[in-house]
């Protein structure tokens, strides 16, 4: 059997894959910088936990309830904020994340500052794997369709996208809603694994962590987001031996990455400037063709 410690790391990796890939839909594919993804995770976590505790519904239904409520909030929040661009949108989503955290901290039903305890432990590795595969399956289907094309077109050039018949507000809200749905799903799994949730479990730092996974792995690339989730979850664990220095190492890795390979480990979208090493002759000769560049 796998030891409890490794099991926990694997479950966290799985949940973070769901979080990173769904955030990647919004940030990497639709080009809308959101730093409030953890807020949707917390809405999903609290909803799923409350449904389980108060209504005693089967686990799968609580997860779906959490995901749908998160999606609802994603759409509601998306409608006014997605009219903003770039930095302004980032600040608005950050503000939203803080509002959600403070509301949960003060509501009676969510246990306030004490948090919610005694959530039954339902999440197993199998559940996480199934949920992650489900997430990837749906995201891939959405991206390989008329809807996904519209998302990417908005990222590439919003004005041109509107001119070609894409209602950009509608598609941005849709992307935000789908992203929030899976964030809520991840939250539900999280709540039913740790059995205890607290508003500070889903603070600003968690949103940033999820953004790191996407940026580190490669914006606009699902394989990249998976690798990012894997690394950002496991590197701090590997560095646990050096105790207080591990956050320093972690920060240093991020800085080096941004300096050396701004488009992320697997990414093709060059974030800063043109011509990453994927554009180099050496790389093209090495891969012989650029088939990989065209995959999803």
């Amino acid at each position, binding site marked *: 059997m796998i030891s409890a410690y490794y099991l926990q790391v694997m479950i966290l990796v799985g949940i973070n894959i769901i979080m990173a890939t769904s955030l990647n839909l919004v940030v990497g594919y639709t080009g809308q910088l959101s730093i409030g993804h953890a807020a949707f995770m917390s809405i999903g976590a609290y909803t799923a936990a409350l449904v389980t505790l108060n209504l005693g519904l089967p686990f799968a239904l609580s997860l779906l309830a959490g995901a749908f409520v998160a999606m609802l909030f994603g759409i509601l929040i998306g409608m006014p904020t997605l009219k903003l661009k770039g930095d302004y949108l980032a600040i608005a989503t950050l503000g939203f994340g803080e509002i959600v955290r403070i509301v949960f901290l003060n509501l009676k039903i969510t246990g306030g500052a004490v948090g919610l305890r005694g959530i039954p432990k339902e999440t197993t590795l199998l559940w996480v794997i199934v949920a992650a595969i489900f997430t990837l399956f749906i995201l891939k289907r959405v991206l390989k369709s008329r809807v996904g*094309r519209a998302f990417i077109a908005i990222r590439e050039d919003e004005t041109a996208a509107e*001119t070609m018949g894409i209602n950009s507000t509608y598609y941005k809200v849709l992307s935000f809603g789908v992203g929030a749905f899976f964030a809520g799903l991840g939250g539900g799994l999280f709540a039913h694994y740790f059995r205890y949730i607290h508003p500070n479990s889903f603070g600003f730092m968690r949103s940033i962590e999820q953004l790191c996974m996407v940026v580190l792995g490669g914006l606009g690339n699902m394989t990249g987001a998976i690798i990012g989730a894997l690394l950002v979850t496991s590197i701090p664990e590997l560095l646990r031996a050096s105790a207080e220095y591990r956050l320093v190492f972690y920060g240093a890795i991020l800085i080096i990455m941004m300096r050396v390979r701004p488009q992320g480990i697997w990414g093709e979208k060059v974030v800063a400037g043109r011509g990453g090493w994927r554009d180099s002759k050496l790389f093209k000769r090495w891969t012989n063709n650029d088939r990989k560049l065209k995959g999803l």
Partner: protein
Amino acid sequence: MTLAENSEPILYAQKVSRYFGGLKALEKVDLFVKKQEIMGLIGPNGAGKTTLFNLFTGHYQPSEGEITFLQEKIGGLKPYAIIKKGIARTFQNIRLFGQMTALENVLIGRHCRLQTGLTGAILRRPRDKQEEKEAEEAAVEFLKFVGLDGKKREKARNLSYGEQRRLEISRALASNPALLLLDEPAAGMNPQETTALMKLISKIRDDMEKTILLIEHDMKVVMGISERIAVLDYGKKIAEGTPREIQSNEDVIRAYLGDTA
């Protein structure tokens, strides 16, 4: 040419003005475009040509006046609604979706003629698959029309300048417009490319039966393919007529060359 002479106007601009604060970018411009004609729009830089295009495609709303397209008022509509009515355009500075392939760019052009939404994307029902298949076949045809079918898997940003211009035209055509607005299609092209472009524009009108309104600084192009030309200067229409009439119009000569000429 014969068809255009007797045909109905499909686009009407009546006393259209557009102000940016105190700046009068366009002032009481009257313009009509007849069905299946090629019309040129010229004027010195800053005359308001692109502003007029932006009014037609819904990027700006007219401050005054009315725009009628196919007997329907289109002032106040958003760009994504206007393309559905049948006006498509290209941009002065090419605006392709750089990271997407040529084929995907043209498929975006078809977006407004397709139905599949989120549910269809996830479920992939037979009709969604059918629609996607047909859209792709149509997109390949539009690429073929501009001679880019060999480049369909190529990313738009890796195409040459001339190819990018043609891809933008192909993307606009994919929306099946009645009226095609071309904003300086020949800008930055060499003489051979320009000649090929003129042939392409004529072909779009003759084979696809489209109406074309184009802004162009290259006089060889405008005079060569337009049946009628309107001239803007400082936001006002100063002349309108056949290429021959425009070439000898004194107001036009003054606008281009100054009073001393």
